[in-house]
């Protein structure tokens, strides 16, 4: 077992290093600005005094590496500095919205993961039938559509025509869970459609890959009933790829959530990021990017660790 923890720890270390490099990238990207942050934000209306005052306020006179480490240590403690536009603390602007985004992603994941795995296994068993072909075309269409296309179709049919769900997912503090789930159903459904399609295709490929292996052939030849072949023989080995697929798609959710939040005017961190980008509010942009990147790296890490834990062969790298 010591071998196993070592392997997992090594993987975690790699993830940490990647995160560190990404944080360097995010911080120093802003240094690429022609001039500096103060000039860029104040723009045309800048006088020398205002620029100097802003530089002073942001501490731009100190060297960049020093400011990087200050920013990084602040970020680790949840302090991302002050918004350039509103003067609000970035951490306060982000916290509530981040919880909203996590809620939306979790809602979508809870619906999508069981559905996708079930359907993926189903199409793998029924491969090359009409059902499989139709599913193939439908999932491909769903993957190829931009998130806003699916979102607006759902709004048109389920919100405007059928009036079953609200088109705009506005949240207030005192809503019951049921009402919350009803309000956020359409954005969650949009995410579910995209992610389920991805997951279904990947699960199908993983299962088909597995069913082609000789020991499954053997089980079939000795007369094991089909359900038993799947449950007893195929599934234990299929967990590794399935866990991988799930983690990768949760990571994918993170990007998809930005467009979906904008379509449904959902008060999440993606919407905040897009607003901050158009206003050029760099501390918020940096903080949001760091959070998104960290979540993404974390989920990819989970995929790797999950694969190591469920597949003993990966524990002995050649």
């Amino acid at each position, binding site marked *: 077992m010591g071998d196993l923890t070592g392997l997992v720890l090594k993987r975690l270390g790699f993830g940490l290093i990647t995160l560190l490099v990404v944080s360097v990238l995010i911080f120093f990207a802003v240094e690429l600005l022609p001039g500096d942050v103060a000039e860029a934000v104040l723009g045309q209306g800048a006088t020398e005094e205002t620029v100097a005052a802003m530089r002073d306020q942001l501490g731009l006179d100190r060297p960049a590496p020093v400011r990087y480490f200050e920013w990084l240590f602040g970020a680790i403690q949840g302090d991302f500095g002050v918004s350039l536009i509103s003067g609000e603390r970035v951490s306060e602007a982000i916290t509530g919205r981040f919880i909203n985004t996590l809620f939306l992603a979790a809602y979508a994941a809870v619906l999508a993961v069981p559905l996708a795995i079930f359907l993926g296994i189903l199409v793998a068993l029924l491969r090359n039938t009409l059902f499989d072909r139709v599913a193939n075309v439908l999932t491909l269409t769903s993957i190829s559509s931009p998130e806003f296309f699916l979102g607006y179709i759902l709004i048109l049919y389920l919100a405007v025509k059928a009036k079953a769900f609200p088109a705009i997912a506005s949240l207030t503090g005192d809503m019951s869970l049921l009402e919350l789930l009803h309000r956020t159903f359409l954005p969650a459904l949009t995410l579910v459609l995209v992610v389920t399609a991805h997951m279904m295709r990947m699960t199908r490929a993983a299962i088909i890959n597995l069913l082609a292996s000789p020991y499954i052939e053997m089980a079939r030849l000795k007369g094991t009933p089909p359900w038993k072949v799947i449950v007893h023989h195929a599934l234990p080995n299929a967990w590794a790829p399935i866990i991988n697929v799930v983690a990768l798609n949760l990571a994918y959710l993170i990007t998809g959530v930005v467009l979906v939040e904008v379509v449904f005017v959902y008060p999440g961190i993606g919407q905040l990021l897009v607003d901050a980008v158009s206003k050029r509010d760099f501390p918020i942009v940096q903080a949001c990017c760091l959070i*998104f990147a960290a979540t993404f790296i974390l989920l990819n890490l989970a995929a790797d660790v999950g694969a190591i834990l469920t597949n003993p062969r990966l524990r002995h790298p050649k």
Partner: protein
Amino acid sequence: MSLFVTGYYAVLIAASCLAAYLGKRSIFMGIFSLTLISFLVGIIGGAGALRTITILVGILALAAGISYAFREFLVNISGPNLARELRTAPLTAAFGMFVIFTYAIAGIFAGWIAPHGEAEVISSAFAPADANMLLGADQLGRDVFSRLIYGARNTVGLALLATVLAFVMGAMAGLLAAVKGGWFDQIMGRLADVIMSIPSLIFALLMLSILGTNLAVIVIVVAVIYSPRVFRLTRAVAGNIVVMDYIEAAKLRGEGDMYLVRREILPNATAPMIAEFGLEFCFVFLLIAGLSFLGLGIQPPTADWGSMVRENATLISFGDITPLIPAAAIALLTVAVNFVVDWMLFRSSGLKEQ
């Protein structure tokens, strides 16, 4: 029971009987399951729902017909070798090629096809469709149909440019990394890891917030974001080729790195790379459309599908489908490219799922 409903079931049942009689099992199963589903849908939704099904099936049949005809057309105009390949193309791939062909025509000849200019204001805001404006006017009174046609040139053109750039950068780096190996390979590989560890949309937003949104910046940023994918594929494919004996022989002959890349490796790596180009185009196209939708991509008044969706989004709440049309145009092209890529991958890998 109206005449339409009677006719509807008569046609379905007759068609399924015919299919069963001719021994076409999968066609029979398809049509007969449709009949059974129609019973259910008809009871719940009434004749209106059956009409919708009829229209959908009609559209599907039309698409299948066009794809079949277009495949025959391609087979007839191409040379014997290409024709043999094309004959094996499934209908979905033929449909994809037809859509790509149509978009190419619309994009190249946009100036002649579009009845009005892309930024020309010709009526009041949100004017309904008439003989002059096929799809009505947008929020400033510009013709939506003309902007859609120009969008084929602007949006697709930009995505194509970014894809080509990403491809050139990624493929060059990948090939050189495979040939040179050593520290160059290591540095490029780690660089690709870092870029791929940030979600692409987030990375694009970060760079655009810093560098501003003009076309050159968008193209370069998007190309940089997606080049690691090409790099990894090229590196893997070329890595398998580099260990071959004929590469060794060429090296012993004293050929330079560029000769190896151009004359020995590239010709053997084209099949997977063409398929990758298609996939890459889909990713780039969706990213650029997403950025435009967020108002951070192609800037007005240039016609562009992503921003057209955003500008007309308010119409959705009145039950108008105008904003869905450019979004559907994006989806249709991506689906079409994916269909073609699917077929190419299947053909080049020779993978036969049992």
